[in-house]
């Protein structure tokens, strides 16, 4: 806690956490106060994250960024935080999405106090996972980030019901299914699924801890310390999958992905943004920064499986997105598909691939945030998400359409936007290790183009019906959010040098630590 930097790390978690606690004592009916208060919290986080990112020194030592207290000596648990080239961009991502999410939530009028308390707690948890360097607290914050989801979705979410209105069949727009998904279902499934994943993680953590304890007699949950221990090949082979699948669940790893579309669809806009944008990254981050770091041999043994499943994610998610009727489901499945690229990048265990994976986490976070923000606006205006019904909105909602188009083009890997660079790096990594899967991944990107353009052509192009006569385009605040996110996508798309430099400075030592590269 000596240096200014470590104070910053501490504050990154403390500000939202205690901010949320303070909010408990606010009068529940002072809506504008609550909104502004949350915005201030989010902005503070944003400022700190940006400062961390800008002042990040790629070849300086990171020891000045450390918080370290003894917390529970009996088990060797310490409250210790730190950053790396990998976490810094993700922290920034979290800050950005939180800010954006709070801003687009201007229309939350149903019990806003509770809503923002839970949301802010969630964000504190996410910061915690990225910053914690002690497995106990990483797990601790991981759970904290998951728990508020249930109420956020259950109370403020929205259900999908296609059992009533039949699909308006339009040639070339099949759009299937008469199904309904109550929000409670989505919330419960998401909660149980993620906690189930965390159980696997927990098992693995305890196994590693106990093994290290019996091998070296050391009682510590510090990732760094645990990664020094020599675990037997067999042990690694057994327990790495626990990390891989446990964290993978949150990363939407096929076939443990189904919570994600349901959850995202049911969730209110800001929560979808945070969840698809940041929380799913926690999973991938966990696989990388915990699983691979602590059990490198296990990681390399299981890498083919991981990259294979990642490929399945890409194709399966993209193809399922083709068959969706609900605007949000399309995007939900697209994030399943895009997380596939992240998992593939991780699976390459190769420097460029890992760079790509981390960069993809960042840019997919921004992109999907933009997506959900815009879809949220559409839903808020039209109270519809049924692709077969929506048509020609571009006439009325040009700006929203433009932003959605940008998000779409980003997701289909259009050069100029950051996802292209990220996916390119993943492709390179994959081509170097498993060329065939690389080919499949590229094909997946093409399928993405199909469903994205289908969506755009149907929802925004074409003649507009009279029922949308008085639709209102994006409000200034929404335009600001959209523009900011687009700006970021463009910035890193056109000049990725700096951010990739930072990521690389985190990835290379990690690989060296694993004894690869």
């Amino acid at each position, binding site marked *: 806690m000596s240096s200014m930097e470590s104070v910053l790390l501490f504050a990154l978690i403390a500000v939202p956490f205690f901010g949320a606690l303070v909010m408990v004592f606010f009068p529940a009916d002072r809506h504008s106060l609550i909104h502004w208060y949350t915005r201030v919290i989010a902005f503070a986080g944003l400022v700190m994250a940006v400062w961390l990112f800008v002042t990040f020194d790629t070849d300086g030592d990171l020891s000045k960024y450390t918080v370290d207290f003894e917390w529970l000596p009996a088990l060797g648990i310490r409250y210790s935080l730190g950053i790396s080239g990998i976490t810094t961009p993700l922290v920034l991502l979290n800050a950005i999405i939180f800010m954006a999410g709070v801003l687009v939530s201007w229309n939350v009028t149903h019990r806003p106090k509770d809503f923002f308390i839970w949301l802010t707690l969630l964000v504190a948890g996410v910061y915690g996972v990225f910053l914690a360097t002690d497995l106990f607290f990483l797990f601790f914050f991981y759970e904290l980030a998951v728990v508020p989801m249930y109420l956020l979705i259950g109370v403020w979410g929205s259900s999908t019901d296609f059992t009533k209105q039949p699909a308006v069949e339009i040639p070339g727009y099949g759009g299937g299914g008469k199904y309904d998904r109550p929000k409670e279902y989505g919330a419960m499934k998401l909660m149980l699924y993620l906690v189930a994943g965390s159980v696997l993680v927990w098992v693995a953590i305890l196994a590693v801890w106990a093994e290290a304890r019996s091998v070296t007699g050391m009682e510590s949950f510090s990732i760094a310390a645990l990664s020094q221990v020599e675990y037997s090949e067999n042990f690694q082979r057994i327990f790495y999958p626990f990390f891989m699948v446990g964290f993978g669940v949150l990363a939407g790893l096929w076939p443990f992905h189904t919570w994600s579309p349901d959850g995202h669809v049911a969730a209110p806009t800001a929560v979808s943004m945070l969840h698809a944008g940041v929380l799913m990254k926690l999973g991938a981050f966990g696989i990388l920064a915990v699983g691979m770091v602590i059990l490198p041999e296990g990681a390399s043994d299981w890498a083919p499986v991981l990259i294979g499943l990642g490929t399945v994610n890409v194709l399966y998610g993209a193809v399922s997105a083709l068959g969706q009727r609900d605007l949000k489901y399309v995007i939900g499945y697209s994030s399943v598909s895009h997380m596939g690229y992240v998992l593939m990048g991780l699976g390459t265990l190769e420097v*460029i691939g890992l760079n790509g994976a981390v960069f993809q986490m960042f840019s997919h976070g921004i992109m999907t945030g933009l997506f959900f923000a815009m879809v949220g606006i559409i839903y808020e205006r039209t109270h519809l998400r049924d692709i077969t019904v929506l048509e020609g909105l571009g006439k009325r909602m040009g700006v929203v359409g433009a932003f959605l188009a940008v998000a779409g083009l980003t997701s289909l890997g259009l*050069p100029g936007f950051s996802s292209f660079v990220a996916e390119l790096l993943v492709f390179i990594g994959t*081509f170097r290790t498993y060329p065939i899967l690389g080919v499949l991944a590229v094909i997946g990107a093409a399928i993405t183009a199909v469903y994205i353009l289908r969506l755009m*052509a149907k929802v925004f192009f074409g003649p507009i019906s009279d029922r949308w006569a008085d639709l209102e385009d994006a409000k200034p605040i929404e335009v600001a959010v959209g523009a900011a996110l687009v700006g970021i996508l463009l910035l890193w798309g056109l000049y*990725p040098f700096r951010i*990739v430099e930072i990521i690389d400075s985190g990835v290379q030592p990690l690989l060296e630590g694993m004894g690869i590269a």
Partner: protein
Amino acid sequence: MMEWAWLIPSLPAIAFALMVVLRRWLPNWGAILATGSMAVSFALFFFVFADWFGEKSFPGDYTFIYSIDWLRAGDAVLTWGMWIDPITLTMLGLVTAAALGIQVYSWGYMAHEPRFTWFFAVHSLFAASMLALVMADNLLLLYIAWELVGICSYLLIGFFYDRRSAAEAAKKAFITTRVGDVGLLIGILLLFVETGTFELSAIFAALANGELSEGVVTGAALLMLMGAIGKSAQFPFHVWLPDAMEGPTPVSALVHSATMVVAGVFLVARVFPFFEASDTASLVLLCLGAVTALGAAAMALVMTDIKRVLAYSTLTDLAFMMLALGAGSVTAGMFHLLLHGFAKATLFLGAGSISHGSEQTDIRQMGGLRRRMPLTALAFGIGALSLGGLPPFGGFFSKDEVTLAVFHGQQFGWVFFIVALTVGFMKALYMGRVFFSAFLGKLKPENEHAHESGPSMLAPMLVFTTLGAVGGLLAFGWTDGYGGFGYFVFAGDHQEGFHLNWGIAGASTVLAVAGFGIAWLAYVTGSLRTEGIIARVRPVHTLVANKFYVDEVYQWTIDTVVLTLGNAIAWVDRALVNDVGVNGPGSATSWSGSKLRVVQSGKLYSYALGMVLGFLALAVAWWVAQ
């Protein structure tokens, strides 16, 4: 000067950015901004050109390369840079000129569009990316620009987005080319994995040193060819181009005839060493060219919408260029590319002028328009004759170059030679058909009100007409240091001057004349009854008129295969993965709960019994344990 060449694409890009950001505040100034930046770029081109000539020795080749780091990750260093060689310069000239002219034209043509500024914005972005594409010094940057022109074309085709047909056409165009791009990207990545770089120079060096295996070379060439035929709408990816005519005519003129669609040809020319090195690749190239040329020419003969006829003629000419490249002559290919660019721009602007002046797009509704719009008629006529390959117009020379190249081609030269001649004849025929039926004959009453277009539209049209007409002169060496197109643009070391093979030239001229003659008889004098001919070859005609049913096949594939698959997977995800795999365990748990609770009967003795059994179980287990 050359190190400043990056300004050429940058200026329009900046113009685009400004227009998008400030579109509210600059209603029509946007157009001025766009055209202004284009003009500057056009001017810059000449400086660069001159500078380049200063560096070049004669005879010989010279390439200027300049690049900066763009991204470093691990061992990979990706760069952005410029590559200025004759091919680049040719394209730069064509693109800047065409873009500038057509923007001026659009001032008049698009004047009444509500989204005037947006049009010019996208137009500038297109120009920028197209210029970047031709200047790229590495495959990655080339791919980036490649995708950007694609998206611009998407936006421009979908300019009238509230027309369902336009929306569909735009989607079709993008997705079709995207399929090709998959190949291109895979090819590029393949080369990266093999050579560790995207730099053209390094890759060519590796190729020259034989570091690349036979398979890799052929594979890379074919994959990149896939991208090329996607963008240049060659069979089997040709379906999108005719639909792309949904866009505003200036767009068709610039994007879908003069510049973007030739990007494929340009790509092949750019990576020509690969096609030189692989006979398989060049044979495939030849075959595709031949098939496309014949098929497209046939369709051009039966189409009635003027823009569609022109679209199919574009396909034919692109196929022509491909033939030339396949036969191993970059010179011929690029020369035809250049002259076709001018001629086709003329024709499209003419067509635009027609529909602008007389709201007619179907050639059967036209006729005698020369009385109302003489200048348009003149321009269109010269364009048609030039493209039909009648001397002394430019098209003749380029067509002759191509035919000659094909004749000398290494593989099955004579087969493709015959194809080339046939296609040459058909070109003349449909060009004649369009021109005669549109401008000659007697004026229809409904076209009485038709009027000539304004100067801003005529001026560029006439400029292109002139260029197309006299462009043939470029073939000859006038100044020392130039020595003809063959000494300017060439592949490897076979640079040669222009020489006419009188036999071939004569033959193709005769065919061209024949073509125009037949067209005259059919559409002016009417002494040749087309209905009769059609009636005789009815099935063939229907087949061709329905575009060989290729679209239907694709549509069917998309509707039944792709979407069905999508719905199927979506269903599987719901019903199996979700309802069984996910909900299953949950419901199983609560089911077992509901079964287990029965144990709790509420009766005292059953509880006691439970305890006794528990005790026995413990004791037995214990006893067994030891």
